[in-house]
């Protein structure tokens, strides 16, 4: 490693800055354009979007059916979309029921509906999660503190192509008198991935 200018001696932050500067000099990227695009993306995409979709689906059976049948067409009803990225991807929403539970993964890399939910958690992208959840979903869910009953059928979705997946969690019991925002507040990113009940 001696004499290697790109080795550990140069921090990754410096190396990224350097490459970005070179690309700017060549006119291939524009620093301000990058910053603006990033800001817009982070402001628009977050798990709160998924939470709103879940809450609306719990309250409105027609919306729930539309969301499950064609999520991309249903998203604009809440002012949401899967656009804003490199290309609009197909969103597939999969519903948890009393006797079935869904978990999402991308074993090959890290595919995730970032256009809707924002960046995925680091654990979702880890080799530990990607390797183990397809083989032992109950074991992985147990690590997240969640143990579906033995009669609950678990299905793991490996996002290996162009579709991106989101779980529609079950509405928790005892929430009959909550309004839509209060219901949305119950939904976590983990629930939308399927490693938590909601």
């Amino acid at each position, binding site marked *: 490693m001696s004499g*290697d*200018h*790109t080795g550990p001696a140069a921090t*990754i*932050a*410096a*190396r*990224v*800055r*350097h*490459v*970005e*500067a*070179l*690309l700017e000099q*060549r006119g*291939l*990227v*524009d620093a301000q*354009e*990058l*910053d603006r*695009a*990033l800001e817009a993306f*982070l402001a628009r995409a977050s798990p709160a979007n998924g939470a709103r979709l879940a809450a609306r689906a719990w309250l409105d059976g027609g919306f729930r059916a539309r969301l499950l049948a064609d999520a991309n067409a249903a998203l604009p009803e809440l002012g949401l979309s899967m656009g804003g*990225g*490199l290309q609009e991807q197909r969103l597939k929403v999969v519903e948890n029921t009393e006797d079935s539970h869904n978990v999402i*993964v991308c*074993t*090959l*890399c*890290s595919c995730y509906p970032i256009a809707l939910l*924002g*960046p995925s*958690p*680091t*654990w979702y*992208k*880890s*080799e*530990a*999660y*990607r*390797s*183990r959840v*397809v*083989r032992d979903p109950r074991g*992985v869910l147990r*690590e*997240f503190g969640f143990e579906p009953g033995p009669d609950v059928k678990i299905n793991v979705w*490996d996002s290996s192509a162009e579709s991106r997946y989101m779980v529609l969690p079950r509405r928790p019991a005892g929430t009959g008198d909550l309004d839509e925002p209060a219901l949305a507040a119950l939904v976590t990113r983990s629930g939308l991935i399927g490693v938590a009940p909601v």
Partner: protein
Amino acid sequence: MSRINDVGGMQGFPPVEQEADEPAFHADWEAHVFALNRALIGHGVYNLDEFRDAIERMPPQEYLASSYYEKWFRAIATLLAEKGVLTEEEMAGG
């Protein structure tokens, strides 16, 4: 060849590590790598499949030792060199 990224079902990995309330990016450079990749793909320097392929071609030991965005940056640098956009020497300088 079966590549190191293809870990589904592979045994031996540890329990899943969770970080409470983690930010979207843990450092500024990660956000820059994210934005840079989008811009380069958007401008047609390479496509998304080439990007994934470049990550997969990392030496296995380096792949497993790298953080997520370190893998991204390594792939971006590989493609920029292979496509003749920047040379290794240019990227090493500064």
